[in-house]
């Protein structure tokens, strides 16, 4: 074990209650013992205090709700978010959605997604911590001019080229705990030209290098001084240049962030962000209606969830491209090594019915390609239409007139997996393909699909919005999982049909030609029938519009990655 422990120096003092959200450790004033304020800094109202007393039915009746808070406290603008607890606040160390969502409040990258015509797009990037950049004629050396005067949180000084070099090299060197070094493998060397200029030499031209520099996963810039000072404890002592700085973490309760006065884009209007650990969507909804929470990051947005949000007058912020749910068919595993069986499988699956059951109406879209809409290079693909009759005919032609049975088909008990598979199981049964489902824990599922135990694999996810990382991850032959070699890749189709195109795409500098290459990859995938996309599901957060506003349209006003709000500093508290 190399990791040194992080001391637990935090307080366990959280409460989301609107009425009596007094957390003595935070708000008790030594000069005024027993005075409590709610999370928005308001005093416990006289309406609330008697209820508290009544409710607690205790003898300690006279201490709460007696004193008014200082004026500054009373006016504090606080946004309360109900989500899951992040597992770390070092942006390079976690793949969890909630972690990636919260670190966006604290960190920035050299580039960011551009705002065009009032919308945030993933198609173009614009300067963020970098002021400008140039590319050498051979396409292998990027020179970034860094913005001057950008400050790190908590007095860690000015952001410089040292921090850029350090942030990338710690990942490239696979410092224990870092996760995204693979996305920087294209870098050969990083050289500091002067404190505000950094040169990054690549092993070869990389068409998506500026996308890699976006504030997301590997692209975030951390403070070198802070990481060196805190070591392994940096996980819970994050220091970035974003609009909010880390204040404290109460494990299993909440993370508190505060507005950074010296944020380069100006101090955010919100004074404080309280990120509560609320695992249950039902509790989140009750909290939204009650006013305890302003923003919800739900586990899953079901039709019922959306209905309830609508009924209480809240809105759902939908953000593309979101996640895609899809089947990969292992083309090496009988009987799916016969393309007729793969075609029969696709004819048997009613994608529209699955999408409408899980994500009715606007909650999702029937996926149109194995490379989701919103990713560079996407083109609509054609898939065998739902036709059980044709499926049965094809199975007969393939020598399987009575269909076949798949025993011990493993499926995760979490997220969308069991729901999709239950529907698919019924649809497949109609053409004679019997699935004997074994519902297992999510971690077990991941282990089993990498052992190639399932002949077709249901999978989902979000990646950098370009064809290369996506297609490389799921269709490059280097990613074929193999227990014998320990390869735990994600080419579950065991597909080898587009390696040449992927290699060509990685060195192509002409945008149109790159697009043509990826169009061709999708056509080959379409021809070989190894992937069946089901639903494109946007990233969705519920928001109380009377409390918090965002300048972007709730309906796809932003394209974002794991975080739904590219620019948390633009969120505003309305009252």
């Amino acid at each position, binding site marked *: 074990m190399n990791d040194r422990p992080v001391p637990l120096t935090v307080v*366990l003092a959280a409460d989301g209650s609107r009425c009596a959200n*007094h957390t*003595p450790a935070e708000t008790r004033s030594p000069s005024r013992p027993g005075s409590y304020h709610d999370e928005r800094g308001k005093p416990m109202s006289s309406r609330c205090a008697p209820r508290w007393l009544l409710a*607690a039915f205790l003898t300690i009746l006279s*201490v709460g709700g007696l004193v008014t808070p200082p004026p500054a406290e009373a006016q504090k603008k606080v946004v309360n978010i109900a989500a899951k607890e992040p597992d770390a606040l070092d942006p390079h160390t976690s793949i969890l959605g909630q972690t990636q969502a919260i670190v966006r409040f604290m960190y920035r990258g050299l580039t960011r997604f551009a705002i065009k015509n009032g919308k945030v797009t993933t198609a173009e990037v614009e300067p963020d911590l970098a002021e400008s950049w140039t590319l050498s004629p051979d396409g292998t050396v990027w020179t970034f001019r860094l913005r001057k005067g950008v400050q790190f949180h908590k007095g860690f000084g000015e952001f410089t080229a040292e921090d850029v070099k350090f942030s990338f090299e710690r990942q490239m060197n696979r410092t224990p705990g870092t996760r995204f070094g693979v996305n920087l493998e294209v870098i050969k060397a990083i050289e500091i030209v002067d404190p505000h200029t950094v040169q990054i030499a690549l092993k070869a031209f990389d068409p998506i290098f500026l996308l890699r520099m976006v504030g997301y996963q590997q692209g975030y810039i951390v403070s070198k001084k802070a990481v060196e000072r805190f070591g392994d404890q940096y996980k819970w002592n994050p220091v970035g240049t974003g609009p909010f700085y880390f204040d404290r973490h109460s494990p299993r*309760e909440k993370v508190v962030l505060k507005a950074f006065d010296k944020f380069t884009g100006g101090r955010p209007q919100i004074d404080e962000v309280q990120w509560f650990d609320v695992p249950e969507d*039902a509790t989140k909804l009750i909290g939204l209606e009650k006013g305890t929470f302003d923003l919800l990051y739900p586990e899953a947005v079901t039709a019922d969830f959306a209905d309830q949000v609508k009924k209480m007058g809240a809105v759902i912020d939908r953000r593309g491209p979101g996640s895609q749910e899809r089947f990969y068919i292992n083309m090496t595993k009988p009987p799916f090594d016969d393309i007729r069986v793969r075609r029969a499988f696709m004819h048997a699956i009613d994608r529209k019915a699955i999408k409408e059951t899980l994500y009715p109406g606007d909650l999702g879209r029937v996926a149109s390609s194995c490379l989701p809409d919103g990713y560079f290079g996407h083109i609509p693909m054609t898939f065998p239409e739902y036709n059980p009759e044709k499926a049965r005919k094809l199975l007969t032609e393939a020598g399987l007139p009575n269909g076949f049975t798949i025993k011990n088909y493993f499926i995760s008990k979490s997220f969308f997996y069991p729901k999709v598979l239950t529907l698919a199981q019924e649809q497949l049964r109609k053409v004679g393909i019997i699935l004997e489902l074994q519902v297992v*824990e999510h971690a077990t599922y991941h282990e089993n699909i990498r052992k190639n135990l399932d002949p077709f694999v249901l999978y989902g996810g979000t990646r950098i919005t370009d064809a290369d990382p996506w297609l490389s991850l799921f269709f490059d032959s280097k990613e074929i999982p193999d227990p014998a070699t320990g390869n735990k890749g994600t080419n579950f189709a065991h597909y080898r049909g587009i390696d040449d195109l992927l290699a060509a795409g990685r060195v192509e500098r002409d945008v149109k030609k790159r697009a043509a290459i990826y169009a061709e990859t999708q056509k080959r995938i379409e021809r070989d029938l190894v992937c069946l996309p089901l639903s494109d599901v946007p990233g969705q957060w519920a928001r109380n519009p009377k409390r918090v506003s965002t300048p972007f349209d709730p309906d796809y006003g932003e394209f974002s990655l794991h975080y739904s709000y590219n620019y948390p500093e633009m969120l505003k508290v309305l009252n």
Partner: protein
Amino acid sequence: MLPYLVRRLVIAVPMLLGAVSIVFFALRILPGDPCVAMMGDQATTEALADCTKSLGLDRPLLVQYLDYLWRSVQFDFGTSLRQGYPVSEYIGRMFPHTLVLVMASAVVAALVGIPIGIVSALKRRNPLIDYPLRIFALLGLSMPVFWLGILLLIVFSLRLDLFPLIGGGDLDGVLAMIRSGEFLSHPADFLAGVGDVLYHLTLPALALGFTLAATVSRLSRSAMLEVISQDYIRTARAKGQLERAVVYKHAFRNMMVPLLTIIGLFVAIALTGTVLTETVFTRPGLGKMLVDAIGARDYPLAQGAITVFTMIIIIVNVVVDMLYAVVDPRITFK
């Protein structure tokens, strides 16, 4: 009594060791790689190998096991693989929340369940009393704590705004004041802190306590039925004692022995129940932490939590065994 206690505690050591060993190997047998869980599908094979090495999971299982035992003896359960916090400190923070929840729900279950069980047994021939009480017990048994919890939150937190929606109150602050002796110098603050904890505890304790009360009432009923059919009860009645005296002086004291046995089981059931209760009421605690740790294959955290659970159950059983002698003078320690 002391030799008995020492003997029981000595016996508890191999029990604990056995439980800890089973947990250690069971977690390793479970499919699922902590590194894949942490690093996701973007991790290269090399990066996964680095991760495995840095967590010490590349060592032979026996070496890992012996290392774990040696550390555990020194109360060093390692650090959480995910969050990096020291496990013992983490558990130390979570444990009081779970403990107060179990204790509070035990109080609710006892206050509700035992009287219902007794009345139901004594009035078993009166369907107007017995049937509603038995229906109550059935309701409690068939109502999942999760569902009841949501219901309580909707009614008492959302609609009536009487209780908070989430959190565990400032238990940490209260404990800190006790440790520092500050509760004597700032009694108002201390009482407010205690009130805050109880205020946050009310709905979770009711939800968990009510579902457990059903079990307690059924078991109390059968214990009471057995006792009141004994000869000495008939004799007491024949002597002309008041029914109240028969029940409280003779029957109730004698039903305490089977009831105490139930309490031993009850703690285990309550600990299991804390998982859902902590989840729905968004309380910090060991139950939910354990489930999350197993899901994430956070071995040190899961092992530490299960060790604590095992210790609690062993201690409760020892205490219950000792209480037998207190409530029933016929039982002696040998």
